[in-house]
């Protein structure tokens, strides 16, 4: 596909177009990570970019997550606009020192002298039978860290349009791409040039009046499907796509809950201490007296992700479990 592609594209193609577009517009931009070049990207996202932009700007790295993430920080300080790809979130643990102790703190430690315009992309999520070490969903966990912006594109428009504003952000931005979305496709909205999208605000993907389902990324589609099911039962579900996990768009969350007076928060992280807990707490703090029912959460079971398909399915939020949680919240009465 080309940079100006319109019509139906896959999530993978949308990200590739965004990368190509950024590489074409700003010579300070380069992509660095494991197998982004000759291999074509572990998930074929960067396929073809090496031929177009060469090995300097499509830079294969050794298996050294800490060093190449830290090198991204240094390159950003040195005037470049690096896009560092960590193949999957599971390996980002090896780079957490650089992310938390350097990327997120240098602006502060230097008293505002040195900002770090770095973008880090990584695949996140479960659902492909990759088992305990390859199925983490940690984007909500990263959202705990001040100094970072955390984005989670769930649509082809966001996959296409979040990269450029992320690169324009003077501070570090982490973009989490859910592994099950790469092959999904959608119609790219008409749009000119960079097709930048607003990365500050959540978006209502489906308006509804009975209950708010608040989610993002890999669980957006499941939530929309659940909403369809419930529509058939006469329950009118609003689905809010957070899009940004840090900062959280609290106004949009409270606005939706103010309309529906009921909320179910859905995410693929482990339940305890996940982002859904934060959202539940904020709703309690901001809309307690408007609530007709306690905020409910649908998250991943507190277990390392099992390999066996039926167990993995049971561990993750599913259309049925989301629908069940919504029914309960609607039935409940304050």
């Amino acid at each position, binding site marked *: 596909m080309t940079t100006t592609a319109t019509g139906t594209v896959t999530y993978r193609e949308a990200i590739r177009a965004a990368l190509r577009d950024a590489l074409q517009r700003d010579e300070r931009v380069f992509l660095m990570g494991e197998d982004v070049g000759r291999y074509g990207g572990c998930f074929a996202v960067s396929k073809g970019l090496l031929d177009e932009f060469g090995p300097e700007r499509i830079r294969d790295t*050794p298996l*050294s997550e800490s060093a190449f993430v830290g090198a991204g920080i240094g390159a950003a300080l040195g005037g470049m606009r690096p896009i560092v790809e960590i193949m999957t979130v599971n390996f980002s643990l090896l780079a957490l020192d650089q992310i938390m102790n350097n990327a997120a703190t240098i602006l502060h430690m230097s008293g505002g002298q040195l900002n770090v315009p770095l973008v880090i992309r990584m695949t996140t999520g479960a659902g492909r039978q990759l088992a305990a070490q390859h199925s983490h969903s940690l984007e909500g966990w990263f959202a705990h860290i001040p100094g970072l912006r955390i984005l989670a594109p769930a649509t082809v428009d966001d996959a296409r349009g979040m990269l450029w504003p992320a690169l324009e952000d003077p501070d570090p931005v982490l973009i989490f791409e859910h592994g099950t979305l790469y092959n999904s496709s959608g119609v790219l909205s008409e749009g000119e040039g960079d097709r930048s999208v607003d990365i500050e605000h959540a978006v209502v993907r489906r308006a509804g009046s009975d209950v708010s389902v608040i989610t993002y990324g890999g669980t957006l589609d499941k939530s929309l499907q659940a909403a369809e099911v419930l529509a058939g039962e006469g329950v009118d579900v609003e689905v809010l796509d957070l899009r940004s996990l840090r900062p959280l768009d609290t106004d949009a969350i409270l606005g939706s809950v103010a309309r529906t007076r009921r909320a179910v928060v859905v995410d693929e992280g482990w339940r305890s201490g996940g982002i859904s807990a934060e959202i539940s707490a904020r709703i309690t703090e901001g809309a307690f007296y408007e609530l007709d029912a306690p905020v409910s959460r649908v998250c991943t079971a507190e277990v390392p992700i099992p*390999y066996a398909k039926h167990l993995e399915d049971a561990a993750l939020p599913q259309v049925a479990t989301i629908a069940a949680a919504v029914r309960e919240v609607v039935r409940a009465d304050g």
Partner: protein
Amino acid sequence: MSENQEHDLHLLHEMVRIRRFEERCIELYSATKIRGFLHLYIGEEAVAVGVMQALGPDDAVVATYREHGHALARGVPAGSIMAEMFGKVEGCSHGRGGSMHLFDASRRFYGGNAIVGGGLPVAVGLALADAMQHRPRVTVCFFGEGAVAEGEFHESMNLAALWKLPVVFCCENNLYAMGTALSRSESETDVALKAASFEMPAWSVDGMDVEAVERAAVSAVDAVRGGGGPHFLELRTYRFRAHSMYDPELYRAKEEVDRWKERDPIPAFIDVMRARDELGSGTVDGIEAAVAAEIDDAVAFAEAGTDEPVEDLTRFVTSRRA
């Protein structure tokens, strides 16, 4: 039959087992019986088979996500491995781990680690436990040459050498880490030389020659068991297949693969045995037949396996529910 001949037949049998087992895995993957990531060892069989000959039942093995061969050569039953990849309770990891996480405590087979370099510190710790308990055991740790760039490699090598722990580091140098050639990941491409910089004895070995691998492994294991501290083996080998089932192999030429296939460890060793007059007319066919039967049984065992009840989802998170 002479002891030597018996042993050679054993080596051949083991390599063929691994080869045919994985060939069957490919079919079963296409048939969607096996899912997730599947990393094949085809072409590298001489390494696992050769090294395992040097180990006793009390020794320990730590491997990677490309570990079918190591598990089979260590004696983990083919059926329990296949059942694991089918996600069945009868699997060697109860269906929780899959292809990348084969475990067998009874054989001191400590997995099955899917984080590149992640197994090295654990191997060092297993060796530390043996050293502190004055047990004459050795821990063998397998990893690819791509892991050499990881900080965990550096820290583990130093700790093992500093504390003179009984570890044999077996670096399977198949020249590529996914699509990244060694020359694009290391400023010093002689990994044995790198290892030596930790003050650790390190040798390079032809990983396509099962006997060379066995000889090197035996000397390393003996030296380690004798209190010589950790040793490092670079096993020069090649991956005949794609990195995993999703790899278009854009990064290497078919000719290069073909050249290495001419050094296929199995035919190569068959030639050696022929020259030694150790193979009767039907011997190889006999091995193939035995292996085919074993694999058929393994698949049947896996097919007949049971799914774990969904109610047990949160088992094995803590020992209270294990």
